[in-house]
């Protein structure tokens, strides 16, 4: 991070780097190739569905991070902008004359414009201050609009929501977007475009000032910038991209309901963004990918996945406020020093027992849950490919012992890991 911001005046090429609009092409080309190639690796329909959901979450999380990470504004009702964008797209889909004269790939733009329109209205009064007051206003407005969805049936469709048919659009170079794979490439195209645009936005003077206002609004004011307007611009831009995500959702699922607006969706996007890491541009992307995968896999395996997700979230906030991206970027200095190898053995010694201990803890939790909530007489449960009777003492002893031993080993090896970490971050030879 730091080398991007500090400039060396003796090198003219570096002087403008902080605000320059250039892209480091490498990662973007890799991302584009990956986006295009993934359907050939995961060819099944369920794979495509999961990937579509993932990319939509990526756009939404990146838009959210324009507020939280780059602007320092915590919003508890951001699902509203995506939702309203999606609902607007749905109405366009249902306006058959207009929709029949428009190619489907343009639809997310309209979603974005509607999301932006709402953000213009709300931002006019909510961006006056950041922090707690902003968070409260976002919560109130979010609740207000979510509650309106059941009352204003003409626009939100009441409890059953509104649905449409994406196939009614003007064929786009002969494509009707009836099949999943066509929708995938439409989504992938928009994800790529949105991500590039959001990255470029963070490089513009406005994007840079958003960071300044986040860190020290008072000083930004003294430099002659109105921190309120800087926040307002970030908010409106974020509303636009949230609306794009909503439009993609409308295209992909062809139905929008109250669920797209409510506080639970807003909470999930906060969770995704924070897990991924708010400090880096790629954090939310990582968060969206990991969260969607975890959600898909875990929700198949256990009823308690929301409990695990919640625990993971609280642990992240408490111990790794940088999120996943922060954890990864922590390893850049050791890599630069060429000392990443020092960490390998201590990592194996600590993390593997810790993982085993946590799995043991999870099985204790699962067994307690089964013991309390399974139907009477149903004593059998299957956990980690073994079937046993949850009402006998033996499985409890095994799970408890695994937990204690795993966490115990991790605890005893942790100081060695810390030492290795300090060593890996120290330049020069062994001290």
């Amino acid at each position: 991070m730091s080398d991007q911001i500090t400039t060396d005046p003796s090198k003219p090429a570096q002087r403008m780097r902080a605000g320059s609009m250039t892209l480091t092409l490498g990662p973007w080309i890799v991302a584009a190739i990956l986006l295009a190639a993934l359907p050939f690796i995961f060819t099944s329909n369920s794979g495509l569905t999961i990937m579509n959901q993932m990319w939509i979450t990526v756009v939404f999380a990146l838009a959210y991070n324009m507020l939280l990470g780059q602007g320092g504004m915590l919003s508890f009702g951001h699902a509203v902008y995506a939702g309203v964008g999606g609902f607007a797209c749905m109405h366009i889909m249902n306006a058959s004359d207009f929709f029949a004269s428009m190619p489907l790939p343009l639809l997310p733009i309209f979603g974005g414009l509607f999301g932006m329109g709402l953000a213009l209205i709300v931002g006019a009064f909510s961006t006056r201050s950041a922090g707690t007051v902003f968070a409260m206003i976002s919560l109130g407005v979010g609740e207000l609009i979510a509650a309106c969805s059941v009352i204003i049936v003409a626009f939100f469709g009441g409890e059953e929501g509104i649905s449409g048919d994406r196939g009614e659009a003007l064929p786009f170079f002969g494509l009707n977007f009836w099949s999943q794979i066509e929708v995938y490439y439409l989504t992938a195209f928009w994800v790529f475009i949105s991500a590039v645009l959001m990255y470029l936005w963070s490089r513009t003077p406005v994007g840079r000032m958003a960071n300044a206002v986040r860190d020290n609004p008072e000083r930004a004011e003294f430099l002659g910038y109105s921190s309120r307007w800087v926040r307002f611009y970030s908010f409106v831009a974020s509303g636009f991209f949230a609306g794009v995500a909503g439009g993609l959702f409308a295209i992909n699922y062809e139905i929008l309901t109250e669920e797209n607006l409510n506080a639970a969706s807003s909470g999930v996007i906060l969770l995704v963004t924070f897990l991924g890491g708010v400090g880096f541009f790629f954090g939310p992307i990582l968060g969206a990918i990991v969260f969607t995968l975890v959600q898909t896999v875990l929700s198949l395996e256990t009823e308690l996945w929301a409990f695990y997700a919640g625990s993971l979230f609280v642990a992240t906030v408490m111990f790794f406020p940088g999120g996943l991206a922060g954890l990864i970027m922590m390893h850049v200095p050791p890599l630069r020093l060429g000392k990443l190898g020092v960490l390998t053995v201590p990592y194996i010694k600590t993390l593997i027992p810790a993982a085993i201990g946590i799995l043991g803890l999870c099985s204790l939790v699962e067994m307690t849950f089964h013991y309390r909530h399974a139907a009477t007489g149903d004593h059998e449960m299957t956990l980690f490919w073994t079937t046993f009777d949850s009402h006998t003492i033996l499985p409890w002893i095994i799970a408890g012992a695994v937990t204690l031993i795993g966490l115990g080993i991790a605890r005893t090896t942790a100081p060695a890991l810390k030492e290795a970490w300090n060593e890996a971050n120290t330049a020069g030879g062994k001290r």
Partner: protein
Amino acid sequence: MELILVNLIDGLVTGLLLFMLSAGLTLIFSMMGVLNFAHASFYMLGAYFGYQISLALGFWVALLVAPVIVGIAGAGVERYGLRRVHQYGHVPELIFTFGLALLIEELVQFIWGKNQMPFNGPEVLNFTAFAIAGNSIPAYKIFMIFISISIFMGLLYILTKTRVGMIIQAALSYPRTVEALGHNVPLIFMGVFGVGTALAGVAGVIAGPVLGTFPGMAFVLGSIVFVTIVIGGLGSLWGALVASLLIGWITTFAKSYNVEMEAVLNGIGIATPDDLSENLFRDFWALTSPQIADILPYILMVLILIFRPQGLFGKRQS
């Protein structure tokens, strides 16, 4: 006339219940500058603990013990959670309490399941206190009013008249000076957090039998509590009281009188369009006050934030 009196009592019950939550929340806010998102979750914990204890030892023991347990849990959260996150700044603190609210809801579902618990009030209070024009007022409601008011009186007395209250008030405004005078300020903060959450626990125990003990109860009341203290002015105890009563009465009256939007609009001189079924605003015309009763607090909050951002009783913000 009689109906107004009944509604006044009902609104008072709701308002005082809200106040028990918002009082603790606003105290914690003025102390740490962070809104405890999980505050309503402690209210839910109070209801569930109360239910579990009342099964074994009866309602009255539950009313005494459950808030204490909730208070200890709250103090623990402050000591081992919030104090740790505090170093990262206010936004992570807010996110932490938000995550905690999620976690507590999942935890409650994990232990007690998703169904409503059969939590009943005490048998002693299971009679009609008095009736107003055929509308009977249960004794339990009177009991709720009595408990809330006595807690408010007690809180006010402790905060303004006792030595402990003086130290707390001083620690709110000048923590460093108070620390220099030899008081353990982190301990005071932990204590206030614990007492605030214990108040929420009391509210949970007495509201559980009336409003239902189910995993969504924190969410139902939670956002209204934030709205309350924003309207009242962040950090103001009197503001919290006034806003709670205001919201209690507004929602109760909106629910019991069926005012139609059409009548209101006609009243101020806007004629009903001829063909409503095709009109873009048909839902707007068909609005009734019971329908929007639950979102009235949010509308009120948005209006307050636009026209008086510091809240009714709040101090002017910089």
